[in-house]
């Protein structure tokens, strides 16, 4: 088709030239004849465009090779827009409309299309699996050539404007300035992509560089456009033909600005709020970042909801949305409550309220019947204290997400919000170390076991119908709730410990394994107990009968379970104080880290069994 058209055109041109020469017989009269005849000139113009087109094809072959379908499509689309804009521009400069003017616009359009193609090519780099040296040579030379051309034409336009005052060269100067910025950003992108390709590891800061490049280039473009519109409006008329590109430029700039702000915020959150995932946590999870599906070796972060991702993946996602990709917890509105960022002992009330904020919806989700005494009031408090703690549960869809978490992470229905980080973490940690997630174990609020032991003052504080009285009451309930949750977590730790020990001790069934086993079991309490508080928590547990399911069984039953599981030796002292060879058991834990998946499965099975047992009731123990 193209071939046919160009050959027809060729034939027409030769006919016109032949005709003129035949009529005039001499060169100069022939030229005059052709320029005087409109029909001949039309043919010559068409021929001129065909030649430009063919030249373009040639250059494309040299610098770009074959175009991909998408590239071609985009080129066509942009070309038509540019063409209409050029026609609009003609209307402004209708006074000096002449062939030279058209030729200049043709050159501009011609160069523009190559800029677009170069841009597309460089964008394609990121998607392409393999790129040969030919690609780099082509892109490199194309970018250099376009850059030089833009610069030369820009200087030319500038000089001509200086000499002859504002003419149509103003438009060209401006257009080439814009094209120069395009080339600059394309070149920067090219360098960044090429640099990334040279390394074998993903380059984390590339996205940041790209973002800032976009921002700066966008800013320059916006300034250029505005300047141009102002100047044009002063000298000629409002330049309608730049409105569309200007609109898109401003939109892109706004987006880039927004992205930068969002990503800064995300980075700040990332650096301050969320802890790095520890190697233990990584080993415990399946160690794949679910965003990029690659191994997490280092640089990963743990969100408040316990999900772990690559820092870079999270950062780019947070530019879009500030939610956890897995459970959609809104991370901006959630103070980092249940994980390491928990304040130490300081502000008890805030801690309690914050924890309750997490625990209450979770508890409500898991136990609609209301096993925990205070879920509803706690949730209410949440709203009340929103001023103090930020909108905790206000607008965030927590229950489903937490319910999900429970479903797959713990297998225990009523552990409350505190166990959001899956319990299997625990065996991996040295029992001596206070695991960070449970940092606030050091000081759960203390509650008098007997309500009669409240001082008069405290009692008065809780009487009455004033707001502060109600708050006081609610705070008490929250404290209770918090302690229940902590007790739940502790129980889950015991359980994991026990199941783990059971597993390691399976082959040599009775005597040999038993001591270390119980020592290990004992280590749990020693490590995690701050005696008074946990004791009171236990007491609260029993007092409130919060254990309809066996997720949080009372302590004695648990002890018996330990013995049941390990061996038949009832005489092994299972007192809390005996923690003889702990380092050994600790080492055991570390050794067996590879069996985690298996362990977890067994653990879940074990828990199921326990549940069944509990439902049948085992009061004997």
């Amino acid at each position, binding site marked *: 088709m193209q071939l046919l058209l160009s050959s027809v055109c060729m034939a027409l041109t030769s006919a016109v030239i032949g005709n003129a020469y035949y009529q005039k017989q001499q060169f100069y009269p022939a030229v005059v004849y052709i320029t005087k005849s409109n029909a001949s000139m039309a043919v010559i113009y068409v021929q001129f465009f065909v030649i430009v087109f063919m030249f373009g094809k040639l250059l494309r072959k040299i610098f770009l090779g074959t175009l*991909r379908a998408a590239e071609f499509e985009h080129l066509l689309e942009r070309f038509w827009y540019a063409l209409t804009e050029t026609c609009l521009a003609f209307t402004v400069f209708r006074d000096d409309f002449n062939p030279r003017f058209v030729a200049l616009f043709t050159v501009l359009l011609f160069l523009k299309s190559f800029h677009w193609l170069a841009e597309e090519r460089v*964008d394609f*780099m*990121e*998607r*392409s*699996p393999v790129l040969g040296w030919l690609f780099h040579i082509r892109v490199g030379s194309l970018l250099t050539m376009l850059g030089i051309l833009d610069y030369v034409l820009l200087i030319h336009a500038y000089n001509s404007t200086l000499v002859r005052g504002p003419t149509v060269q103003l438009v060209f100067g401006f257009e080439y300035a814009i094209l120069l910025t395009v080339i600059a950003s394309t070149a920067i992108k090219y360098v960044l*992509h090429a640099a*990334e*390709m*040279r*390394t*074998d*590891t*993903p*380059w984390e800061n590339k996205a940041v560089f790209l973002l800032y490049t976009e921002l700066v280039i966008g800013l320059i473009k916006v300034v250029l456009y505005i300047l141009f519109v102002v100047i044009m409006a002063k000298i000629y008329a409002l330049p309608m033909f730049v409105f569309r590109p200007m609109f898109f430029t401003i939109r892109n700039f706004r987006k880039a600005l927004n992205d930068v702000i969002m990503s800064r915020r995300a980075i700040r959150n990332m650096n301050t709020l969320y802890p790095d995932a520890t190697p233990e946590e990584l080993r415990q999870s399946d160690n794949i970042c*679910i*965003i*990029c*599906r*690659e191994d997490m070796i280092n640089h990963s972060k743990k969100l408040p909801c316990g999900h772990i991702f690559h820092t870079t*993946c999270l950062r*780019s*996602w947070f*530019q*879009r*949305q500030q*939610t956890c*990709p*897995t459970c*959609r917890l809104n991370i901006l509105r959630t103070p980092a409550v249940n994980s390491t960022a928990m304040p130490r002992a300081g502000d008890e009330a805030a801690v309690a309220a914050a924890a309750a904020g997490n625990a209450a919806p979770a508890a409500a989700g898991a136990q609609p019947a209301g096993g925990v005494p205070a879920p509803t009031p706690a949730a209410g408090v949440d709203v009340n204290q929103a001023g103090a703690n930020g909108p905790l549960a206000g607008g965030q*869809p927590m229950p*489903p*997400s937490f319910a999900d978490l429970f479903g797959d992470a713990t297998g225990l229905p009523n552990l409350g919000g505190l166990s959001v980080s899956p319990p299997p973490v625990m065996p991996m940690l040295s029992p001596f170390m206070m695991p960070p997630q449970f940092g606030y174990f050091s000081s759960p609020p203390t509650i008098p076991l007997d309500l009669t032991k409240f001082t008069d003052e405290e009692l008065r504080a809780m009487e009455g119908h004033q707001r502060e009285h109600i708050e006081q009451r609610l705070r008490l309930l929250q404290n209770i709730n918090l302690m229940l949750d902590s007790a739940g977590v502790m129980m889950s730790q015991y359980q994991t410990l026990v199941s783990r020990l059971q597993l390691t001790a399976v082959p040599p069934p009775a005597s040999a394994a038993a001591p270390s086993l119980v020592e290990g079991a004992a280590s749990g309490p020693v490590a995690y107990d701050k005696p008074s508080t946990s004791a009171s928590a236990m007491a609260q547990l029993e007092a409130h009968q919060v254990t309809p399911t066996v997720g949080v069984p009372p302590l004695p039953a648990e002890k018996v379970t330990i013995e049941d599981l390990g061996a038949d030796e009832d005489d092994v002292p299972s007192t809390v104080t005996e923690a003889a060879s702990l380092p050994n058991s600790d080492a055991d834990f570390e050794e067996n880290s590879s069996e985690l998946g298996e362990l977890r499965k067994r653990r879940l099975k074990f828990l199921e069994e326990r549940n069944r047992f509990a439902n049948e009731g085992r009061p004997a123990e």
Partner: protein
Amino acid sequence: MAGSALRRLMAEYKQLTLDPPEGIVAGPISEDNFFEWEALIAGPEGTCFEGGVFPARLVFPPDYPLSPPKMKFTCDMFHPNIFADGRVCISILHAPGDDPMGYELSAERWSPVQSVEKILLSVVSMLAEPNDESGANVDAAIMWRERREEFNAIARRLVRKTLGLPP
């Protein structure tokens, strides 16, 4: 090192090839371009689409998996949640910001933890259970709701068509 989108798509392709879910085949149309995939979806058993094999095309954005891909059936489809031109309208394919139908929960929208496999499984379940409230194809939605027999007949005809059988 290629871009992260490409690596992720390669990983998904590998995973789908090694462990394909039942009734779904998917992969890049050409190994040169991992951003356009073709998928074949078997009509779920026990539904009016049973027995059909429906080809579809998935186009991934450069910033996948941060943005969802677009999916379009390349055969004739008549379904409440598929536009007349074959575009699939399900919430998992919509970025959380935009809500073309104005009813979707953000919880069921696209997020980077979704995958091609999950999309295709959602499409299979969409074939089995149309959501007549979203109504990408209103005719189909109304027919599905009110004249189920007629709808089934059309679906069966489409099934035969995808298999190259006479209607």
